[in-house]
């Protein structure tokens, strides 16, 4: 039985710079980077030193608390450097690509393997981090037994890649191999959530072994957390796992080819990109080759991911582990004279307090300006408009701020992640850093529960 759920709450931020549905070429840089900071709560322990020769699939570092979880190199070559930040925290491990050598993990038909063998193979190859869990929105604990697994088959975030287009450019049979591996991980269902549209293009996928559900509505209707909340909500003591669509293909490749090859179709988007298009590449690739000669101005913000949840990177920075989108927008580090009092025909706002809400307008190219100062919670009923969950966002946030574990549990901390609250943060008139608060709450729960 497949369900259809239409959501009303949410907001599609009308941004300029959607990627044209065309593969413009390959993102084929010399340098690649693997970033421990992509994984919340991870304490990395290095396994290689600068100068070491490695293959694609060689472990670079592992999780200090769960040493079985390895993070491997997407390409073969040489480790160039280990960049560290404050308090010697490891920010990125940089690899210079050379050759095409792969660590051989062996070809198998996942159907013939036991659950334990599949987990072992995912852990060794560096694909385990692709399997994440709710609660907490972190890398799944291999010892858990999830009640179900979710795969989001569309993305509603600002300027997000079009999954229909991506799926057309991915091998359907490899996806099926990935699914048969993933379905061994749970006793429950593997749920694939697709966008409900008036006309569905008959794809090359037949989605065997998955339960297909349909969702419709504005962002965040494509967030996996929203799907889980409506289809199989996480209660205390339970776990639901989820995997990105493109990672299912990478998992399929691991079993079909025996290699770690985290391929991505990457959408290059944003108002400052001359030709926003799609590129083929690998997780961790430097964005330098696709950015070069393809931007329109200076003083820009480069983001791995989307404008709501992505990570700030340099113009030659690396695509994040979970990302398949790069966004380039203008920086906003300038003063605006009486900016808050002008009618604002060209000012982007979810509220209807600017003239722009009353003239039919196209799309906006907002910059990174904060647009105000931090305040206490004042307006009420705003976050609810962009959070399609049966959760009281402001009260949950206040419970987190006051560190009240019982109340956080009661108000639904197990079901949320910062990405679900990203729109609340965007629209907040008090400029509260909501995603950070949510992550602090999740970290606090992890600490309390361990």
């Amino acid at each position, binding site marked *: 039985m497949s369900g259809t759920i239409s959501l009303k709450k949410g907001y599609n931020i009308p941004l300029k710079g959607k990627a044209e549905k065309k593969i413009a070429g390959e993102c084929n840089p010399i340098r690649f980077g693997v970033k421990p900071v992509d994984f919340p709560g991870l304490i990395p322990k290095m396994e290689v030193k600068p100068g070491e020769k490695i293959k694609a699939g060689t472990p670079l570092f592992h999780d200090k608390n769960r040493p079985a979880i390895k993070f491997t190199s997407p390409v073969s070559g040489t480790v160039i450097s280990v960049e560290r930040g404050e308090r010697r925290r490891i920010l990125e491990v940089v690899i210079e690509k050379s050759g095409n050598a792969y660590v051989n993990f062996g070809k198998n038909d996942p159907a013939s393997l036991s659950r334990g063998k599949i987990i072992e193979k995912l852990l060794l190859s560096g694909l385990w981090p692709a399997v994440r869990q709710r609660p907490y929105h972190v890398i799944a604990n291999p010892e858990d037994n999830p009640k179900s697994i979710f795969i989001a088959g569309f993305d509603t975030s600002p300027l997000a890649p079009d999954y229909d287009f991506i799926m057309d450019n991915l091998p359907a049979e490899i996806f099926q191999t990935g699914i048969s591996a993933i379905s061994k991980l749970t006793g429950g269902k593997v749920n694939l959530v697709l966008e409900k549209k008036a006309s569905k293009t008959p794809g090359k996928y037949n989605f065997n072994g998955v339960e297909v559900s349909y969702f419709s509505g504005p962002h965040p209707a494509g967030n996996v957390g929203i799907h889980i909340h409506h289809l199989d909500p996480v209660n205390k003591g339970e776990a639901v796992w989820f995997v990105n669509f493109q990672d299912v293909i990478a998992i399929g490749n691991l079993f079909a080819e025996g290699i770690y090859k985290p391929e991505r179709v990457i959408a290059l988007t944003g108002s400052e990109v001359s030709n926003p298009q799609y590129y083929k590449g690998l997780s961790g690739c430097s964005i330098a080759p696709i950015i070069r000669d393809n931007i329109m101005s200076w003083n820009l913000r480069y983001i791995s991911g989307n404008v709501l949840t992505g990570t700030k990177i340099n113009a030659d920075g690396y695509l994040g582990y979970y990302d398949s989108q790069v966004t380039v927008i203008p920086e906003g580090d300038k*003063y605006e004279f009486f900016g808050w009092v002008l009618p604002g025909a060209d000012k982007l706002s979810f*509220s*209807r307090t600017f003239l722009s809400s009353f003239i039919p307008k196209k799309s906006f190219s907002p910059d*990174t*300006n*904060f*647009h105000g100062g931090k305040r206490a919670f*004042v307006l009420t009923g705003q976050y609810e408009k962009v959070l399609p969950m049966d959760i009281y966002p402001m*009260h949950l946030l206040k419970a987190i701020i006051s560190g009240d574990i019982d109340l956080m549990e009661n108000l639904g901390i197990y079901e949320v992640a910062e990405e679900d609250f990203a729109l609340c943060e965007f629209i907040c008139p008090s400029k509260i850093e909501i995603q*950070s608060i949510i992550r602090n709450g999740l970290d606090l729960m992890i600490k309390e529960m361990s």
Partner: protein
Amino acid sequence: MDSLRKKLDKIKPHFEEGGKLSKLRSVFEGFEAFMFVSNKVTVKGSHIRDNIDLKRTMTVVIIALLPALLFGSYNTGLQHFRSVGTDPSILQAFWFGFLRILPLIIVSYVVGLGIEFIAAQIRGHEINEGFLVTGLLIPLIMPVDVPLWMLALGTAFAVILGKEVFGGTGMNVFNPALLARAFVFFSYPGWMTGDNVWTEGLMKGQNIIDGFSGATPLSMGASGDFAGLPSFMNMFIGTIPGSVGETSTIAILIGAFILIVTGMGSWKIIVSVFGGGLLMGLLLNAIAANPYMEIPFYYHFAMGGFAFGAVFMATDPVTASQTEKGKWIYGLLIGILSVLFRVLNPAYPEGVMLAILLMNMFSPLIDHFVIQSNIKRRLRRAVLAV
């Protein structure tokens, strides 16, 4: 504007920590933020932010208050000229009233913002915008002849004991503007009630012509003078004695329209306050044990501060219910209690102020029950899943 910006950048270091004017940091920052939206950019979390901030929010509410303020100015003049028996032009009446109201506004802002600046300096915070609205609300809910020192005292009481002791904007339990009014009301009842306080000049012993009564519809109702009650239309338009901004239902409804269209005031609260008043009015009509109970229920909407309270006071997001379901209950009870207090409590002709302050106190309780039902739903789901 570049030259102004350069000047600001030049003097800015003096106001920062260790600078010779660091005691005026909050004042400098307040004015800087007033003139220029800061150049601060996003660091973590969402890379783009909505253009709305609290300054914009408060500006919208002030714009919504303007019709009531403009009509209040006109009506203050009109009532004055009526009391001395002359027939002013619209402009004459407006200008007269405006000059009488202006000192109230100035005193309210100077006292309130002064305290806010000091509080921000002590706490090391930025100046909060909440008082921009409160400072205009306070003069609008006072009789025009209230002495300025009383107004100053009431404002200081509301800002210090009503707001800053709880932690400033966003933390207060009671609506600060209503608290200022309640303070003056209970401390100096002679200046807040009776038939003489509502018309400019009467308290100063100015002669009035025969036949002029400064009584408000509410005090007529309380004293049983139903023959003297103005027509509904006059009350709706607002050419009646009363607090500065409360008389014109139509000007207030324009404000309500602005609040609802921009989404800055909760339509649920506005509708449910009127709904509560309607229910109670109909109930009293049905009982009809005395003449006050018999006045048509819709009269209550146009009399006294009912509409003003529903649109501008009950909707204060900080002191109202914070859950959407709670807002319905909160508003409904304000409407019911306002009319109930008016008609059945002989001590005070007006019930809106006390009804809202009372419900301010109970709004966390309403939210508590709404949230408990959400928690129970979640727990039940967990039990079912096992």
